[in-house]
């Protein structure tokens, strides 16, 4: 490595340092704080100094790393490819292993309330990810308003359960149907738009639904949210320590000690089953004509049109089915929380679900699981650092797009091919 090169790299680092100073100087270095009803500036130059030095040093190291890498090009294979290959080979065994693990998970010794809550949350996101994977991964439609359907599911479940007193098992399909209908209503006018326009319009719809929930006080109680949503029961047996007169509960029926974990474990299995249904449905429908039409549309819309596939109807089915699963997940969310408010359905939720699908590798069911564990884990680990964790989250989105634009498990093999590979 020559002296010239070192000099060039040092210059580059200096430049990076200057840019970093310009970036972080005002925003980080001059923190505005309210004092006596007026804003004053609180200098934080030491932090800026550290950041600038870190940026410059980082740039230098990256340059050297890239230089080294170029010298021995072609030696190492990429990690993601290896993982992808490994999953291809052992896919079926791993899937069975993962399912077995999730089934026995509640009975693991470490599975206390905290772990169960995280597991339930992850399962909800996995289910949403699998649902959105139909829309984004299979049909190639970037939907930034997916949380709207989740909200429709949650609110329709809550409203039916509160006002009519219907049980979870009746409300669940109703919530799904409502969400799917909503998907058709939204999808019908917008689905002929091009990819990026569609993304913005779905975003707008998602926000409109949230604003509507916030302001339609008579129906949704606005920002106060809906409370007292009935908890689910085990086929009519409620999970209660002190049931109403004459009502048999879960623990008395099975002759068990009462424990609040019983309800949590039941919720866990409920979402596990719902998620697995979503997964198997997706795997099956991929092989049906409509599933193949989705994937064909994703690859080339014009070719599809000329072969007689109706793009609008095909996209609409993807949109509606994706929305339906979001509706199911929404009703699960409502029954688990027993309280819902528009707060839970902000744009950032949509962004998280989209990130899960995209980072996992669009169209890859295993990828959704991997990226959920990674992203929700990341958010959980940094729980105490509210805004830093979202910085890390957004940063991860950018980095994965830059280094592996097709996601962690980049796989876009057609489900059905002609010839012996099929």
């Amino acid at each position, binding site marked *: 490595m020559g002296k010239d090169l070192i000099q060039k790299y040092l210059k580059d680092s200096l430049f990076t340092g200057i*840019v970093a100073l*310009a*970036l*972080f*100087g*005002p*925003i*980080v270095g*001059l*923190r*505005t*704080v*309210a004092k006596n009803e*007026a*804003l*004053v*500036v609180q200098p934080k130059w030491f932090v800026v100094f550290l950041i600038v030095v870190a940026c410059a040093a980082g740039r230098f190291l990256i340059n050297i790393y890239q230089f080294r890498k170029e010298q021995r090009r072609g030696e190492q294979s990429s990690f993601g490819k290896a993982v992808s290959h490994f999953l291809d080979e052992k896919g079926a065994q791993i899937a069975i292993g993962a399912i077995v693990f999730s089934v026995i998970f509640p009975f693991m010794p470490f599975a206390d309330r905290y772990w169960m809550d995280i597991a339930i949350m992850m399962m909800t996101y996995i289910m949403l990810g699998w649902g959105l994977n139909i829309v984004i991964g299979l049909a190639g439609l*970037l939907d*930034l308003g997916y949380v709207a359907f989740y909200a429709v599911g949650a609110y329709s479940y809550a409203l039916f359960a509160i006002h009519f007193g219907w049980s979870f098992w009746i409300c669940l399909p109703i919530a799904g149907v409502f969400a799917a209908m909503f998907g058709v209503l939204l999808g019908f*006018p*917008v689905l002929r*738009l*091009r*990819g*990026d*326009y569609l*993304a*913005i*319009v779905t*975003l*707008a*719809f998602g*926000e*409109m639904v949230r*604003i*509507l929930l916030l*302001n339609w006080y008579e129906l949704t109680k606005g920002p106060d949210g809906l409370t007292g949503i009935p908890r689910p029961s085990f086929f009519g047996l409620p999970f209660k320590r002190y049931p109403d007169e004459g009502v048999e509960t879960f623990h008395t029926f099975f002759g068990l000690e009462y424990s609040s974990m019983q309800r949590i474990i039941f919720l866990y299995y409920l979402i596990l089953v719902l998620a697995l249904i979503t997964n198997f449905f997706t795997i099956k429908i991929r092989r049906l004509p409509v599933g193949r039409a989705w994937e064909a549309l994703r690859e080339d819309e*014009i070719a599809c049109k000329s072969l007689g596939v109706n793009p609008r109807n095909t996209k609409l089915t993807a949109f509606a089915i994706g929305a339906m699963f979001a509706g199911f997940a929404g009703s699960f969310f409502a029954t688990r929380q027993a309280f819902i408010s528009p707060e839970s359905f902000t*744009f*950032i939720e949509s*962004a998280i679900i*989209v*990130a899960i699908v*995209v980072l996992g590798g669009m169209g890859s069911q295993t990828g959704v699981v991997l990226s959920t564990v990674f992203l929700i884990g990341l958010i959980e680990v940094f729980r105490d650092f509210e*805004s*830093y964790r*979202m*910085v890390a*989250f*957004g*940063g*991860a*989105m*950018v980095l994965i*797009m*830059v280094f592996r*634009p*097709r996601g962690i498990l980049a796989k876009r093999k057609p489900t059905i091919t002609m010839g012996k590979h099929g």
Partner: protein
Amino acid sequence: MEYFLQQLINGLTLGSVYGLIAIGYTMVYGIIGMINFAHGDIFMVGAFVALIAFILFALTSISLPIVLILVLLIAMVFTACYGWTVEKLAYKPLRKSFRLAPLISALGMSIVLQNYVQAAQGARIKTLQPVIQGGFNFFKDSNFVVTLSYLQIFIILVTITLMTIFTLLITRTALGRAQRACEQDRTMTALMGINVDRTISMTFIIGSSLAAVAGMMFVMYYGVIDFYIGFLAGIKAFTAAVLGGIGSIPGAMLGGLLIGLIETFWSGYISIEYKDIAAFTTLVVVLIFFPTGFLGKPDIEKV
């Protein structure tokens, strides 16, 4: 009638701000064909830089016109750095990627910027004391006095000046020619000896500095900002860009004015709670029925 006139004035002021942001969307869309989702947050960063600069200058005894010019320049320069860096980090490596990759990367960048500013500056709203006060009052005898404040005049004048400068820049200079060439065919432009990377960087720098101006106007006009203002303003400005015809700079300005007017009239005459719904509805209606906008070219897909 007086009420209408007042709404018109307010709408035009708001529209100027949206128009300035919309130019950034439209220029970037024109040159690399992507929706720069983080542009709204660049605008928010600009507003914060302007706020900090105003607070710092309040401690000195520099006269108001010079302070205004200095804050304008400071906001433009520092915010342009953000635009430049975002492009280099998040969009440049993705230029040859599949079409949704830059959009997702931009989404990530938007989340990063919002939460970074929240972490660095705190989540609470920031208020700025009015910088320019007073104004002209009309119809003093009637029961509704129409006010045209000096601040509104300032905002509209600055917008018109900057618009003129940048229109000249695009139509008359070598940089503008390079930009228009890149819009048509990037490979061919590179073969003609034009540095495409630098042209794209310049586009981001110009767009971001105009967003910074919009941010400065916003913080002066409303006096209240937080880290979340970029999201809504960004969507509205994007709507403006589409309404005017994406890719067209006069279109972006026209669209911005229209969106500003729609929003003020909606909140003035119909309902203030649903004023954001007005912007979203406009966006949806425009994209569905009118995707080329007023001054845009139809988008023909070639096989």
